[in-house]
């Protein structure tokens, strides 16, 4: 039987009826709420394409059950900033022209945003370590590192 959950995404509460409470959050965001982000990359928590913030922490929405996310505050890339009021990382991403296909972009920006929230002035090694288990197939890693550094230097 369908179970009802309330998801708070980018400050807005949504009620969804879910057939399977073990369903990963990713499917609720995409299929129930119709969001274009985050994205399905592996479904295994290995790549980061589905990353969102749950109560400020970067989490991989493809492995978190919707039932575990229902009481939290969820932020997606689209909720991080807007063209009118961009997050410093979004500005830096454009300045460094980082992404190519950008299928991976949720992972990189949301993970880096959580890092900067916790540590506004990270060292180079801290940046690399925070981004160490993200995958990009276009090879934008170096550019992403430079963008995070630029955003941190404000």
């Amino acid at each position: 039987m369908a179970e009802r959950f309330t998801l708070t995404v980018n400050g807005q509460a949504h009620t969804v009826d879910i057939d399977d409470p073990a369903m990963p959050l990713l499917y609720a965001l995409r299929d129930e709420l119709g969001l274009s982000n985050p994205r399905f990359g592996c479904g295994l928590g290995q790549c980061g394409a589905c990353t969102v913030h749950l109560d400020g922490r970067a989490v991989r929405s493809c492995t978190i059950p919707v039932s575990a996310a229902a009481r939290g505050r969820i932020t997606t890339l689209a909720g991080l900033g807007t063209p009118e009021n961009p997050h410093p990382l979004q500005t830096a991403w454009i300045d460094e022209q980082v992404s190519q296909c950008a299928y991976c972009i949720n992972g990189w920006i949301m993970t880096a945003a959580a890092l900067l929230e916790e540590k506004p002035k990270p060292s180079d090694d801290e940046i690399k370590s925070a981004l160490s288990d993200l995958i990009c197939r276009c090879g934008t890693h170096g550019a992403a590192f430079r963008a995070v550094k630029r955003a941190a230097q404000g």
Partner: protein
Amino acid sequence: MEASSELNRRVFLLASGALAIAVVAPFETAGAATNGVASKPPLLPDQLDSFLAVEPDGTVTVFYGRIDGGQGLEISIAQMVAEELDVPVARVRMVMSDTARTVNMGGASGALGISRSGMHLRSCAAEARRLLVEMAASTLGVPANALSVTDGVIRAREDAAKTISYADLIGGRYFAAHLTWNGSYGNDLVVSGRARTKQPSEFKIIGTSPRRKDLPLKVFGRLDMVNDVRLPDMMHARMIRPKVAGAVPVSVDERSIAEIPGARVVHIRNLLAVVAPKEWNAVRAAERLKVTWSESHPNFPGHDQLHAHIRNAPVVRRHIQTENGSVEEGLRNAVRVIEGEYEFPTQSHASLGPACAVADVKNGEATVWTSTQKPHYARDGIANLLGLPPEKVRAIWMFGTGSYGRNDQGDATADAAVLSQHLGRPVRVQYMRHEGLAWDPKGTASVNRSRAGIDASGKVIAYENISKAFSRLNTATNEGRAAHVLAGHLLEVPLEPDHSFEVPVASYTFDHKRLGWETIAPLMERASPLRTTHLRDPYGPPILFGSESFIDEMAAGTSADPVEFRLRYLSHPRDREAVRVAAETYGWDTRPSPRNAQRNAEVAVGRGIAFRRHFETFIALIAEIRVNRSTGVIEPLRYVCAHDVGLIVNPETLRHVIDRQLVYGTSRTLFEEVRFDENMVTSVDWATYPVLHMASVPQSIEIELISRPEAAPSGAGEMALGLVPAAIGNAVFDATGVRLRRVPFTPERVKAALA
């Protein structure tokens, strides 16, 4: 939402939460323009209107029958058009591959976007400008040669009152003007107008670096990709693949998914899928479905024995592409013969997102939303597969995961079309991770063998380079035929494999030279998880790993410096300049490899160079690496890349393209190998198909662009990456005196080689 709205067709969220496709008729607000004609001529390549339109608001729409997923062709080609039309680049919008609106210019293929299609569109833009100036001359009553154009406004130089804009002349109407067309489509399509294009001295926009338009949409999470197309009544599908290659479904227990809401089975010949209205329910159904599969014994050699298999397999086709003099005679006259053999693994496209596509087939018509690189061919292939006339099929390209070759997007598009035709409602197919690695068509493994004969003076007088590999065209480079998609294999269409490989474009001038290739039969003919096709820079990495490592072997064998040795045998000025600029930028000290001083050091540093010419692109790459003998880990420290692509349209974007692909090339060099056992591919996720992470990114990448505005632009999208394996291999030799002969250079393999 700017870039998406440029598509004139938007997928947007309705208040209900359902998504629908809005079709905006072009030119619905036609203004006062009276030149040209009101209705659009047929969508044929000999019509200017097939490539370019001036809208009522003065914007210029370019119809580009290729695609740009994010490398920057979109902005670069907009620049080329803006330059010739004398309009601001911000006013140029691109429509990319929609078979109802663009002609087939080849899709993304061979890094030909700028060198071919960009140049053709430049000519179209120049022709449009010529026609517009003629119209203005007659409207204003001023001779054409007394008019000038700035920002899309034509002015009489002698009379400031006499001006008229492009929009006022023709906005919303059509030129109905003919172009010269060579009658070909795809990569071979050539069109031109009568107008001359600008000289480099006249450029204002070409050579500048405006930023990409797609990036803000991506950065703010506002870009709809193919994954985000949602249609009313749409079913989500998951394909069911066998655990043993070659097995086909014998029976399916539909009761095994009876409890999942809305889930049902689609089983057509050997094609098996589950569908459900909710995506997660399709995923669950795919996991739960009970299938009895036929017996299959593929007897694959396994990835560890693959190169032994390639060596021993009978040759199906042998082709000598270059033969100068007589290699046998040269070898007879040599005082010394050097031989080298190099192995390259099977590699996957391994796109970050497994493929996704949406199809809507009904009433004898089909529309597919696809992220394949070659949507026009996908249209043809789907028509072929569904038994529809091609004009009844529309393929609309959308952004998606980066593909870099004939990846699995074409297969997913065909699957969606077959399922939608069967169900009579829209279907979205999303492959799962294991499919994106285990079932995509692969880049072939190969063995590259070289021989060289050296005379008493140390001169190389004979050189032979022969690759032996699976065919790069076992699956064609596009999906234009049902035989070349997985669905076609499963629906038992007759197969159409071809045999081909390649040779290095060796500009080295050796007296006796032979370059060739041999192909062998595929390990499995139908529905193989190891189908081979084009993977980005389709034969560069495997062949250049062999040929450019062997050039280094010859240098070392004659106690020559690797840069000096290359220059000794390169005569073309652009070849020589690329090598010279790379060496100078790096600060190369002339000496033979290896650096003897650190031969037994625990941690050794070395530098290596590799060079190629591909079309009219000339590239030299120097890699400096650190290698640890006890761990076997190679750390890329510094890359220097000298890059001559002729005319540079957008220098900053070009730098980004080179930078990103050198990182990608490092992944293919150090990490990537498709593993498989006797039954099936065992690389099914990012743990079993390791790729590069942040820790292995080169600490610095310096790109030296060699600018040649007078030379035609060549391609840049994939040429540099093919040099990475040899440059790193040569650097390891410089550091340690040990030559690596097998990609990827994993720690275990490096440790074993250095032991």
